[in-house]
């Protein structure tokens, strides 16, 4: 039976933890609050160490706070991160997404910095500043950076943050062996999609949507053991799903032969790191998604495909082919996921008649249980100080 406006607004007969108000996906003021309370406080992946293989290699990263960061490998091989902002007139220092430079020179007035963020040259320094200001006072703003968990470069702009290991906890335990060899990024592409970042991450946290994917229906959903996978939740909002073997032959007519260290079969593993990073191992391919929210209804997603640094050319070609078939910009599965998220955003409109988005499936934490999303929104609510199912309750109470 269809519902009246009042019935629609009433919400589902489920516990408050089992649905969210869709305005958390559409409200621009909540988006700004998320940046302040979540993204400016947590560890985020900026790039992979293979993108900074040599001394003085650098990469840039657009942090959700809106600032560009520089990641640079120093002469001591340590990777450091700085705001990509000149201390003089706030200009962008590095303009290319990647490069190699022992000295970083701002094109505007030629202020120059070394790979440790120290300002090493100010043209006509003494003439302009005398003894009032010197190079030593105007180094770059450093951002905490650590290389870990498969060689990814993690950054946190909060100087008071806990160490990365404390933030991650045991979340990567199930991928420890698979992430231990040296990895190399062979695929990188960005997608700017008209959707909310959480909707993308939600999709990576539930497998119920396997019904949408022809490939997954054949290779997973219809296969033995599919419904036995268990979601494991960790502190700080991270989650992991038990592995299963992918039956590629059901789709392509033959099973994949190439494997991955620690994964002798064509298994699928999934780890979600709060608030927007996903590691997906679908042997022989490995993909990592990271996100930069650009607004309530816009997100920049960075997709990386990785292989082993020790891959032979033939092995690399096979990983690449398998990755691209499903997950490249011309792949068959990625388009479906992104399309679904875009359609969600088209259907969700900000305003009083917001929809209630259900996260209410309970199946003993197994494959189609929506515990992954419930746990995510518990953490979101804790950091935001809001209830995801009723995000304006506090404001309403204050007005009374």
């Amino acid at each position, binding site marked *: 039976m269809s519902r009246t406006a009042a019935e629609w607004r009433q919400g589902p007969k489920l516990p408050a933890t089992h649905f969210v108000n869709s305005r958390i996906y559409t409200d621009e003021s909540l988006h700004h609050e998320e940046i302040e309370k979540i993204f400016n406080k947590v560890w985020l992946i900026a790039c992979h160490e293979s*993108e900074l293989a040599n001394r003085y290699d650098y*990469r840039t990263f657009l942090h959700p706070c809106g600032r560009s960061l520089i990641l640079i490998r120093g002469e001591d091989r340590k990777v450091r991160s700085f705001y990509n902002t000149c201390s003089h007139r706030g200009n962008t220092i590095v303009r*290319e*997404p*990647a*490069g190699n430079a022992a000295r970083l020179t701002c094109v505007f007035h030629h202020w120059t910095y070394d790979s440790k963020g120290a300002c090493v040259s100010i043209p006509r320094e003494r003439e302009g500043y005398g003894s009032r200001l010197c190079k030593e006072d105007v180094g770059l703003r450093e951002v905490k950076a650590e290389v870990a968990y498969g060689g990814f470069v993690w950054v946190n702009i909060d100087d008071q943050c806990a160490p990365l290991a404390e933030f991650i906890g045991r979340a990567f335990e199930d991928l420890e062996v698979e992430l231990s060899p040296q990895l190399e*990024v*062979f*695929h*990188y*592409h*960005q*997608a*700017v*999609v008209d959707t909310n970042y959480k909707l993308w991450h939600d999709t990576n946290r539930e497998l119920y949507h396997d019904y*949408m*994917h*022809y*490939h997954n229906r054949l290779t997973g959903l219809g296969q033995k053991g599919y419904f036995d996978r268990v979601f494991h939740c960790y502190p700080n909002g991270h989650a992991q799903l038990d592995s299963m073997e992918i039956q590629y032959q059901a789709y*392509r007519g033959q099973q994949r032969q190439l494997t991955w260290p620690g994964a002798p079969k064509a298994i699928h593993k999934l780890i979600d790191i709060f608030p927007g990073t996903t590691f997906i191992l679908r042997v022989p391919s490995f993909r990592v998604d990271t996100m930069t929210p650009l607004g309530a209804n816009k997100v920049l997603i960075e997709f990386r495909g990785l292989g082993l640094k020790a891959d032979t050319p033939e092995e690399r*070609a096979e990983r*690449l*082919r398998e990755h*691209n*078939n499903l997950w*490249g*910009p*011309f*792949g*068959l*599965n*990625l*388009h*479906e996921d*992104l*399309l*679904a998220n*875009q359609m969600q955003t088209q259907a969700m409109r900000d305003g009083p008649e917001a929809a209630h988005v259900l996260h209410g499936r309970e199946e003993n934490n197994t494959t189609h249980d929506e515990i992954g999303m419930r746990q995510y929104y518990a953490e979101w609510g804790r950091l935001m100080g809001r209830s995801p199912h009723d995000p304006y309750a506090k404001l309403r109470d204050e007005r009374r």
Partner: protein
Amino acid sequence: MNADKQISELVYRSCLMLDALDFEGYLGLCAPEFRYTIVAYSPELKKDMVWQDVNKEELKHHLDLVPRHIRDTGTISRFPTVYSITCSADGKRANALTGMQVYKTRLDGGETTLFGICRLIDVIGLDSGNPRLLSRQVRMETRQLGIGSQIPF
């Protein structure tokens, strides 16, 4: 018809067939040894990335699967311009360089937006008197393709 005209027509026809989702027709323009690649230079990785690298059989498999997958309801329109054609001395092969703009048109409302730009680097066999694509490399200039496309350029 001279060879240049035949080659231009082959390039244009291949694009029109993909626009029309006539995959069988497209594959009919390709020689048995056809190889199709999509390549993009990544300034982030400072090297070429291969986004698709398939032989004719693999491309057929991919295209056969497209209707079974969920895809955007809009249409894709390719606007190629053949810039140059160079024939080998023996007249058996030709290289064609084509610049191409690709647009997307939404089914609902009909809005058209630029999807991407690229170059088609084709090698064409002329042996049989009936030009056939021996290889096509799509060299992408656009790397940010939004939700992407299951149908190759």
